[in-house]
């Protein structure tokens, strides 16, 4: 699997199956870069977890739909359903633990 950049059109299909992390971000956002590095490392460690990135400037309707008030905002999806989400650059260990709760 790989990190995929979502559009307004393909978003729902991308989160429909499996464990998916949705990263609401923007290129100008410093904390988003910190989270992006964590997600890259996560992809190395857990290649069976899908990562979908949503640029809030490119996809304003998605940001509005999810009431994204600040970025980064990381949503945890499982088979098309939101399990939880957390604003800010969530520590790597917390992301791992949440994924483990969802997978196992």
């Amino acid at each position, binding site marked *: 699997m790989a990190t995929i950049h979502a559009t307004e059109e393909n978003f729902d299909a991308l989160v429909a199956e499996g464990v998916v992390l949705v990263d609401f971000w923007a290129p100008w956002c410093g904390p988003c870069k910190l989270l992006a590095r964590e997600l890259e490392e996560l992809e190395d460690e*857990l*290649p069976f977890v899908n990562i979908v990135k949503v640029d809030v400037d490119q996809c304003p309707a998605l940001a509005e739909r999810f009431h994204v008030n600040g970025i980064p905002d990381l949503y945890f999806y499982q088979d098309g359903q939101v399990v939880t989400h957390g604003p800010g650059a969530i520590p790597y260990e917390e992301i791992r633990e949440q994924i*483990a709760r969802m997978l196992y």
Partner: protein
Amino acid sequence: MKSFIRTLADFRQAEFPREIDLACPEEYMQKKLRSLSRPYKRTEPASTISEGDAVVLTLESELPRFHRPMVPVNVGAGLYDAELEGQLIGHIPGETFAVSVQGKPVTVTVRSASRTTFPEPTDAMAAEYAAGQEGMEGITTVAAFREKIAREYRDDQRQEALFAGMQACMDYVLTRSDWAFDEDELSAIIGDEVSEQRRNLAAEGLNYDTMTDGEISRSFGVEGRAELELLFRQGAEQQIATLLWLAANHGVDSAAYPMQELMEQDLDWSFLEDYVSGQLTFTN
């Protein structure tokens, strides 16, 4: 009546790590070096399972947690079950075998196994990576990148040691002092917190005042309203106690000020930062 300090513990009695090793561990360095070679990483089928491989298993067991048709696992990550993961090493895709987990037999079938490998980073990779990154100006070799990582690690360790020391002092004081809390002051802070939560929840179409325990559990990760309200109260007590302690360290007679006025005073934590900094010694 207002909140006040009955007895105040001495934060200088708090224990925290005072000698800090700043040498960057090689395992940490190797993980960071992957930033350079990540565009060139390769994921291929693994012929024999080893640590770090991603595998998909079918498990059969009387233990519900280990009776699953398809479960993805990173071997050795310890996310699923360290005992099971350790017994996968050396087996091959397609193989079915028995292991023991928590003293019970588990039948494992390896559906697939893959391994991601990173090539040795080169100066060309370092230059390519640096070209697209802020703060990487002048980093054109692996050696320079290693030095940057080691420097950042040292800075992080210093900062973390300072925060850990300050936190230990704060915890020491908050748990060993005796505070008298005024119910009106607590209510005011709790009221502000509830108002903010009301606004946040309303933005998600939820009504704080009518939410069921189940809805509260899903939104806040607690058992229900009783636990949430207890957390609000504990948070308010901690806020008041912290403020009283801060005021005491600035020579302010907290009993003479309403809590709101104390909150608005420009009281800083430099006394604590200076104390902890003076206690730390760094090696390497």
